[in-house]
């Protein structure tokens, strides 16, 4: 499975422990003989819970994975950022995500609710492709950080057309840690008592 051309990826498919699924627990597996291997990118290398698997994609695992690695290898363009935590600016402004949007909402409803924080440079209110109703989320672009921040602060958890909406940033400067990952405080186990002075 070694693919020497893989570069600039977050995970090393060869180095990381690929999780061999434990089929002994009776979970149904479509690939009868092969034990499906979870890419460490999928699990983040942290989890060890066996998964119930389903689907034909688990056949020909090695060949498919080699294809995938080749496709997803190489440099991906991104906007420059320092990689720290916090929201990331998009190409011309700051994007906020609104969720819990009522299915009959119209763009005007979002314009009216959010327009007071600043000029809305871009608004996407996508429809459910099957029903034609609003899918439930909207993406709004403000030119300035402060406008977006204020919209988030004041609109998150409020009601729009009888439904509670949530508002937050859409893009981040870096990866986020999963909730159940152990956090290490920068102080480690150092004492907080003031140092002795001589």
């Amino acid at each position, binding site marked *: 499975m070694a693919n020497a051309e893989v570069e600039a990826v977050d995970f090393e498919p060869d180095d990381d422990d690929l999780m061999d699924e434990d089929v002994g627990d009776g979970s149904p597996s*479509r690939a009868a003989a092969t034990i499906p291997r979870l890419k460490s990118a999928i699990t983040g290398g942290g989890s060890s819970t066996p*998964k119930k*698997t389903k689907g034909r*994609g688990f056949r020909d695992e090695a060949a498919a994975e080699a294809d995938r690695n080749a496709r*997803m290898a190489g440099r*991906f363009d991104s*906007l420059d950022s320092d990689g720290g935590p916090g929201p990331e600016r998009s190409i011309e402004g700051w994007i906020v995500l609104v969720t819990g949007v009522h299915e009959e909402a119209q763009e005007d409803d979002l314009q009216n609710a959010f327009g007071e924080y600043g000029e809305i440079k871009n608004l996407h209110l996508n429809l459910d492709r*099957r029903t034609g109703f609003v899918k*439930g989320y909207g993406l709004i672009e403000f030119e300035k950080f402060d406008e977006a921040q204020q919209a988030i602060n004041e609109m998150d958890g409020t009601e729009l057309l009888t439904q509670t909406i949530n508002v937050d940033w859409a893009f981040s400067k870096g990866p986020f840690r999963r909730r159940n990952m152990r956090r290490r405080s920068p102080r480690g186990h150092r004492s907080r008592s003031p140092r002795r002075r001589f």
Partner: protein
Amino acid sequence: MADGEFNGEFYLRYYVGHKGKFGHEFLEFEFRPDGKLRYANNSNYKNDTMIRKEVFLTPAVLRECRRIVNDSEIMKEDDNNWPEPDRVGRQELEIVMGNEHISFTTSKIGSLMDVQTSKDPEGLRIFYYLVQDLKCFVFSLISLHFKIKPI
């Protein structure tokens, strides 16, 4: 019932493509557990080259993606009666949600006719619409983040 909607891991990858006169033309995107969204679109049509974008999403966006997937109930489906990938093309949908991991493959779906005449119209229809909804979501995210608005 471990539907894993908001707990546990989440990973999603979608691929659609074919190999032909203009090379390996494909669209692929991936929502990774650390929040990274990767998007690739390749064609050699008129000597075009690959577009590859990546950006980190906030937990809010991942949660919304999970909700979309959950509402579709795709995790309950199975691809064993769906048309196999063929010369015309291939689609792949791989999702990890909580303790379930699906990896479906099928051919390209041209229209609802293809869905209705298949051996599993109900399941394939769920797949068909979920893919469209996911594409909408990803295209919005990518274009808003990377694309300059024309005057």
